[in-house]
């Protein structure tokens, strides 16, 4: 299918749920919908990078199962206790997790990738911890950009890129449609995820986590509302709905997450195709 309109794909933050992007990518490939550039945030940046390098969906699935394992949270419990009793001194560069396992896993896939070598233009959004600004990364190493964008505050240590201390892109722009708008996209296919809310609270950490979810979901809604009205053409939101809560290490649910992503994409497909056939 050919179109004069420029199509961009945006994959928002959402941790393991972002594996749903593999299902979306499968649908776009099957339908011959040609994406010209890709933008990602946080967990979405990992899948956006794989899409930008045209990695096979099966490979995405297998890799997802090896990434989202509990070892990427190594040290969390011990460091949380230590931070409470004062034996762990926390600074702007600290995180509760020893990130060596996460970094090793990310380097195995993205370690050698450069933005300039990607098969299609690709950008990653992170947040400057000191200024709060959204930072768009599109140069240098892909690993550094993804690692920065993934740095959930307090949990993972921030990551320094170009002398800026960066954290999770979701803190400023969880579904960075604006980057695609700035880059001249007409049709924007945007896969976003909301964070689940808790019903029970047994610790201060749980309350903090809930507050984080409330903040993030409200940032997502308000930025989406603005981008939606600011854009000159169409934005197609692809919002997968999951039957149950998807926790960070639910690797056994990854095939189902991908399936939900595919289903959500197929719901938008008639509308996307209708537009493409009429431009």
């Amino acid at each position, binding site marked *: 299918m050919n179109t004069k309109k420029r199509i961009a794909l945006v994959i928002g933050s959402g941790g393991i749920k972002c594996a749903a992007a593999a299902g979306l990518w499968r649908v776009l490939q099957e339908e011959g919908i040609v994406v010209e550039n890709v933008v990602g945030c946080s967990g979405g940046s990992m899948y956006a990078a794989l899409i930008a390098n045209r990695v096979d969906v099966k490979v995405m699935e297998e890799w997802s199962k090896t990434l989202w394992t509990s070892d990427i949270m190594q040290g969390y419990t011990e460091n949380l206790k230590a931070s409470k009793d004062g034996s762990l001194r926390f600074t702007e560069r600290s995180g509760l997790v020893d990130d060596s396992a996460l970094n090793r896993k990310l380097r195995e896939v993205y370690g050698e990738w450069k933005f300039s070598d990607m098969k299609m233009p690709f950008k990653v959004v992170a947040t400057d911890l000191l200024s709060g600004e959204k930072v768009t990364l599109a140069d240098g190493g892909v690993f550094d950009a993804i690692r920065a964008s993934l740095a959930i505050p307090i949990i993972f240590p921030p990551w320094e890129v170009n002398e800026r201390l960066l954290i999770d892109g979701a803190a400023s722009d969880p579904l960075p449609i604006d980057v695609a708008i700035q880059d001249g996209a007409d049709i924007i296919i945007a896969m976003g995820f909301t964070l689940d809310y808790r019903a029970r609270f047994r610790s201060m950490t749980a309350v903090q986590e809930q507050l984080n979810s409330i903040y993030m979901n409200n940032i997502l*809604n308000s930025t*989406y509302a603005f981008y939606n*009205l600011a854009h000159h053409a169409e934005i*197609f939101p692809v919002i997968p709905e999951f039957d149950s809560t998807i926790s960070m290490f639910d690797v056994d649910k990854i095939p189902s997450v991908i399936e939900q992503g595919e289903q959500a994409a197929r719901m938008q497909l008639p509308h996307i195709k*209708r*537009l493409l056939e009429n431009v």
Partner: protein
Amino acid sequence: MEIHDRQADGVTILSLRGSIDAMTAPKITEFIQGQVSRGNIKLVADFSGVDYTSSAGLRVLLGAIKETRAQGGDLRLTGVQPDVLKVLNLSGFTNILKMFDTADAAVASYS
């Protein structure tokens, strides 16, 4: 996209059927502007036949809301289907729109 209009107690009820997107937005804009130019500024849009609203469709709605409200009227919705409601929620429209379960309730809200 089909649009029909009828009057009820000084309110114009617009019944829309189909998808509101970039293709149909110009027709809807023209139709609503025609209503407003005739002084019909109290509008109720019956969405029970609308299966989809895209970002272009939402911009049409926003334009109509601003135009009618600027003249002392409004655009109120009824019959919004679940898939359309999701989009209205995500895009913040439910914060600025008045929505009603029935067309009668929407009409009555103007009195």
